[in-house]
């Protein structure tokens, strides 16, 4: 997948977790907790969704590496 496709997929799963987020408004460096206000349950649901979609088992210690769309794209590209 290209970085654009990875980003689109990440944002899609993000919006499933938090349907009020508008895709166009999400910046590459927006922090999913500090800026987009996901709580720990939302983050776990996002990680679960990414696991289901990409088959990547993101350990808890790696959560900081998916904290923004830009970080997540790099992480997914590396892990996929």
């Amino acid at each position, binding site marked *: 997948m290209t970085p654009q496709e990875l980003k689109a997929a990440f944002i899609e799963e993000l919006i499933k977790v938090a*349907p*009020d987020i508008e895709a166009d408004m999400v910046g590459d460096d927006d922090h999913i907790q500090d800026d987009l*206000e996901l709580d*720990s*349950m939302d983050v776990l649901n996002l990680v679960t969704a990414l*696991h289901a979609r990409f088959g990547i*088992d*993101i*350990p*808890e210690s790696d959560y900081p590496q998916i904290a923004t769309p830009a970080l997540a794209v790099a992480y997914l590209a590396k892990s996929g």
Partner: protein
Amino acid sequence: MPSLGADMEDGTLVEWMIKPGDTVKRGDVAAVVETQKGAIEIEVFEEGTVHQLTAELGQKLPVGAPLALILGQGEAAPDTPPASPEPRPAPPSAPSSPAPTVEPTVAEAPPRPAAAPTPVARPPQDVAASPAARRRAAELGVDLATVAGTGLGGAIQLADVEGAVGVAPAKTGTAAVPAHEAVKPSPMAEMRKAIAAAMSRSKREIPHFYVSQTIDLTPAAQWLEAANADRRPSERLLMGALFVRASALAAARIKAVNGHYTNDAHVSSDTVHAGVAVALRGGGLVAPPVFDAQDKTVDETMAAMRDLVTRARAGRLRGSELTMGTITISALGDTGAEAMSGVIFPPQVALVGIGAPQKRPWVTGDRVVPRKTVTVTLSVDHRVCDGRQAARFLAAFDDLMQSPEAL
């Protein structure tokens, strides 16, 4: 129309889940009602056969008004439906105030439309919509993905579907809904009003006092990290599940903090229905309970919390989930302020406020070491219990958190 909290005055019937001739039992979902707290599933609290649906879809009904007539076994149907039926028995947790007289659709000054939430475009799958909205969309051939939702979290409500195609609200029979009823303030403004009413009542009526204890969270954090390392994401636990489990076990031991205060007396409960405060995105708060939390494992507690958070955000809670909690746990989450003194959710008598965990110097033996800590504050109703019992609750909570494997 059951009371779903002391602050509720009325609700709007939006969907029937039963029909005449159905056999129903306690706990079955009879209808969906839109309230200040979103769309709520109303449960049956008697066994029997549905004889007649007396309320109309779209009708706004005061608390206590009959919705349907259910006949018990061997009970004969009345010849004609009573013009002014007796109020149905209230659920046990309902306030004892007399039910309002049954007058459907009270005329009110039309509320000024509050600033509506910005409509949200969303992918076609996983569209959040009330069942009534889904059914009406199917009837009208409307694609839900094209409808802007104004419900909680952008959920599509009945009025949104009808607004999208410009049809009059669905109605049957003659109980027309006044036109101004269609102009609704935003659901979030309604929820703020509901929270304002409940919290004002709490601070007006409940003489709160607070006890706090900072506890060593390191054993629980380490246990959680090790447990989650071997688990797939869908099976992982959150610290919140340990907090709820420890609170439930502590509340089962110190019964004075568990239950309801009704009719000038504390009715303590042998079971712990542990309300979990769930922040709704965009504002608002609900606290549906993990039922029988004292008997659930940590994994079962976590599964129940996941389900509650998902349904709370989608606006799919049940009526019993708004009224049956016996104690509430409110945690600030991973980051943020270190302590919180919460407001008790009436008619409950205590609330466990949990700050965000902090790394702090900790004295162990004669040494000072860095430890992960958390400050737990119990808000308590002084009509019901005293400092000693409250302190015992915190000591029990602390104790339980030091052996997370046993939770």
